[in-house]
């Protein structure tokens, strides 16, 4: 009678399992990238286009020569990429929820936060790939780091860490807004002023005073300055501390808010 009654060991949702399930789900997002690399197009093509556009269109006007501008803008573009790639986290989560994949996960004895942890961890790979594309293409165009490889690596790690702290903004938006498309639209509204309201593309001195006031404290500016310092030389300590403070602050505000919105969205079913 009881042919299939033997239940496998399911040990519920202990903290150790949360990490393990998070990793399994992160593996899922990474596997997705491997299977359909076109999902990376937005984060790979975008850096290339941005680089070409800004360097050859504005480089001469802003920095006097395209070569000089390339040196200045590339570290900043790394920050920009982390910012735009972080949008993907919310988009992917929103898609999973609207397609019902989340319902299946939630009917399993895994921690409620495991899918969230998995999505965020999986995104590290996306950040890394697009940063590699940007750096590689930049070097092809003539970018040369004047420091050492370790510093460049540190810059990349810092930028990824920034992506991981700001991605909770897109998670928060994704949990508050219903459709994945709306999430994208909303995120752009938040991201664009952040991105251009910085010294990534133009020197702060050329801006009006009220804009300088913001640009000088903007996390994007601080991160870009840190990355520049680490890659082409210049002050590192000051902007690094400011960047870390910003990242801690963002995490402190956004992570609890995103978790709250996540739990709320799930309980609404």
């Amino acid at each position: 009678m009881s042919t299939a009654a033997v239940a496998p060991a399911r040990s519920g949702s202990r903290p150790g399992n949360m990490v393990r399930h998070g990793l399994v789900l992160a593996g899922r997002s990474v596997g997705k990238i491997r299977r359909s690399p076109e999902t990376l197009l937005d984060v790979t093509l975008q850096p290339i286009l941005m680089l070409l556009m800004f360097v050859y269109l504005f480089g001469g006007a802003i920095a006097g020569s395209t070569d000089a501008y390339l040196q200045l803008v590339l570290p900043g573009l790394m920050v920009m990429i982390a910012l735009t790639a972080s949008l993907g986290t919310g988009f992917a989560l929103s898609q999973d929820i609207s397609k019902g994949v989340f319902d299946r996960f939630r009917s399993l004895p895994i921690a409620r936060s495991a899918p969230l942890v998995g999505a965020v961890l999986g995104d590290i790979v996306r950040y890394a790939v697009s940063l590699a594309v940007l750096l590689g293409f930049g070097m092809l165009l003539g970018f040369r780091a004047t420091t050492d490889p370790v510093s460049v690596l540190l810059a990349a790690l810092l930028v990824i860490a920034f992506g991981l702290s700001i991605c909770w903004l897109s998670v928060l938006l994704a949990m508050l807004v219903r459709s994945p498309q709306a999430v994208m639209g909303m995120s752009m509204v938040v991201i664009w002023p952040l991105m251009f309201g910085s010294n990534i593309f133009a020197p702060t001195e050329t801006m009006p005073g009220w804009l300088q006031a913001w640009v000088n404290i903007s996390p994007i500016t601080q991160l870009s300055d840190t990355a520049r310092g680490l890659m082409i030389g210049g002050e590192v300590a000051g902007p690094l501390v400011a960047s870390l403070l910003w990242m801690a602050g963002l995490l402190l505000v956004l992570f609890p808010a995103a978790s709250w919105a996540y739990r709320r969205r799930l309980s609404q079913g």
Partner: protein
Amino acid sequence: MSYAIQAEGLVKRYREHTALAGVDLAVPAGSIAGVLGPNGAGKTTAVRILATLLRLDGGRASVGGFDVSRQPVSVREIIGLTGQYAALDEEMTGLENLALIGRLLNMSRRSARARAKELLDQFELSDAGGRPAKGYSGGMRRRLDLAASLVGRPQVLFLDEPTTGLDPHSRNQVWSLVRSLADEGVTVLLTTQYLEEADRLADRITVIDQGRVVAEGRADELKRRTGGQSLQVRTSLPVDMDTVAGILTELVGRAPHRDEESNLLTVPVEDPVVLSTLVRRLDAAGVVADELALRLPSLDDVFLALTGRTTDTEERPTAAPAKEGSLA
């Protein structure tokens, strides 16, 4: 009797809208329970509460003896859920979809793959197992989705409209899979809009409408409760219809409904005993009947009768036996 699913007075409210207004359910272990109702009746809400996806606003429910509000993790360890829309990762292959669930259930990589293969075989998806799910047909998707809810060998399985949108062939496949699961001792609760589905699969049926239970019982009980039986005679030759109509009128005391196109005569009866008398009379009259049957009203009739009263102010005739379907 031990119940695998028990719910008392389930209430769920969304702002002004009350999705469930006190639903009771009791499903004996190892049986198939059907929850029947129109769109928006509250079927999906009830399933989501029982599967611990939604918090309830009133009443209580237990699955496998575990309280859904207080012991949700224990409930999740023994249930499987197949929602209304296939919960698959479109980019992943069938095998990967199933293996992922296995991994999340703490199986080793190897045993997760083995279990996935086993299920693909069982659901006749072995050939498609290596292809991404986005290329699957509707029926294949459903089967894969059903398979995904079985990876952990659940004791209780929730199926929310498992055959909505499927062609008849795929529907039959899903039906036989559900039946074989029940034979293995799995308790199944399925929601459906299809009366035929509830009739074929479910041991007991709960009819809900506007968040309330309007009827509960075995299919034949529900049919009996709402209307009388009817007697049907299909004559071989059209010319015999008059003779048979005469005999029926005499036996039952009212004229039968005649369907000239299919030579079918139908008349409501209170006492099934007339059937044997009818056979003798037809024999004596030398009439050959192709079909002679005593029919319960269809679940369609039952459903109309049960929900018609609450959804519409307009009176509807109860269980009109005039147009009996030609199935079965």
